[in-house]
């Protein structure tokens, strides 16, 4: 099982490389995950998206889609792709300490 070392603690990761436990997440963990994803810094807009993702997940058990993100988080699609290049839904979920979005099959 892969782990992530944060401030002397090793946190368990799931098969997709996301945090295995929701409660292991903290702002420090988010910063480390962000660096891994190639984001040098997390701006207030990043944090707004991350917090919104966590709140939806806590209520509903799955991360929101990009459409819903842009509708409810106040960040438009263009900005969202600038904040989290390539796949905002997937990347923001990882940094927010959530499992990979289930999406559709």
């Amino acid at each position, binding site marked *: 099982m892969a782990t992530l070392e944060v401030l002397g603690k090793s946190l368990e990761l799931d098969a997709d490389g996301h945090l295995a436990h929701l409660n292991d997440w903290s702002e420090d963990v988010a910063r480390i995950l962000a660096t891994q994803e190639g984001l040098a810094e997390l701006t207030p807009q990043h944090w707004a998206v991350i917090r919104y993702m966590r709140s939806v997940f806590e209520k509903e058990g799955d991360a929101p889609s*990009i*459409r819903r993100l842009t*509708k409810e988080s106040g960040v438009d*699609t*263009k900005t*969202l*792709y600038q904040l989290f*290049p390539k796949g905002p839904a997937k990347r923001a979920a990882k940094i927010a300490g959530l499992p990979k979005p289930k999406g*559709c*099959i």
Partner: protein
Amino acid sequence: MRSVLILGGGTAGTIMANKLARVLKHKDWQITLVDKTGDHYYQPGFLFVPFGSYRMRDLIKPRTRFLPESVRYLQSGIDHIDPEKKTVALSNQETLLYDYLIIATGADIHPEQIEGLADAEWGRSKFDFYTPQGAERLGAFLKGWQGGRLVVHVAEMPIKCPVAPLEFLFLADEYFTRRGMRHKVDLQLVTPLPGAFTKPIATAALDKFLARKGISVVPEFNVARVDNQEKKLVAWDETAVPYDLLVSIPTNMGDASITRSGLGDELNFVPTNKETLLAEGLRDVFVIGDATNLPSSKAGSVAHFQSDILLENFLQHAEGRPLPAHFDGHANCFIESGFGKGLLIDFNYKTEPLPGKFPLPGIGPFPLLQESRINHMGKRMFRWVYWNLLLPGWPLPLGAAMPTAGKRMELLQRTV
């Protein structure tokens, strides 16, 4: 007298009407079904129309032919549902009361959701094959096309029948080969997914197929707009893919009546319990087929598997008992791979498509994730099965729960 109202008489609504009519006592129950049009289309056949192997008129039958006489059929648009009052307002001004409601209004394409897609050039250099008109127009266009870059583009997930774009490419490869002009055509799949399909083992197998047929894939492409002047798709990160002929699978959305009722998610799909098929937060409302927000595939086979679950749960729910049946997300899709061959995949919420054999009593094993002639026969037979077994709600040799017998389940560990 109690009433069940079914909204939509497509695949799922028709199956439910037949199944309910067979088990509910006519003296105790009134079953009503509403649909806006009189024609029932065999949608899986749309795929073949652009290549001339099916004609549209062979894919249409009168809707009422598949409804039992005991079911009251109303032809009208549905305006909105009022789940508090338990009524449905129709566009013909009539209002219907219900004790139990089954939403089966399906999904449709919405090219207007992507900037620049619907306006200029739609039906000239940009086509769809998800609508009868789109498929016919594309067929007429292909006959005279001289070649160039043909891009099949999936705008957003989820879409109906997520393998249809791949099938289109496989069939296009065959079509242009037979016409002696394959060397003049570039075939490309542009998709927001990380590969050809949503799950890793099937994606690896399908990617291999695409490569062998000289079809390239642009994965993780999140379209922002279509540039009609320069004929290119532009992503949010400004990367672009040029095309001469765009075959688009635009955003798929639930029906507008769902939005008017305030019941839909951001794509007008109805939030539905994954296992019981009850609408979340509503009283006495079930949802089935493409209208749900379930993470299962939007496919006729899925609607069929769901109908077994829904029937069982409906009967218990109507007696005030707890719901016994749990949908596992089972889907089963034949994938036409061109030149008279096909693949088959079978999967559910938890188990991704695996190679192996799929047992069909009486017909024999169909190879899974492997090209074979019998899978192609299966696909072509599906039209007959659809009209004669599936819509009437007769048992198919396929149960609601996904079988694991014959599958190479050991492959699953390797991917985790």
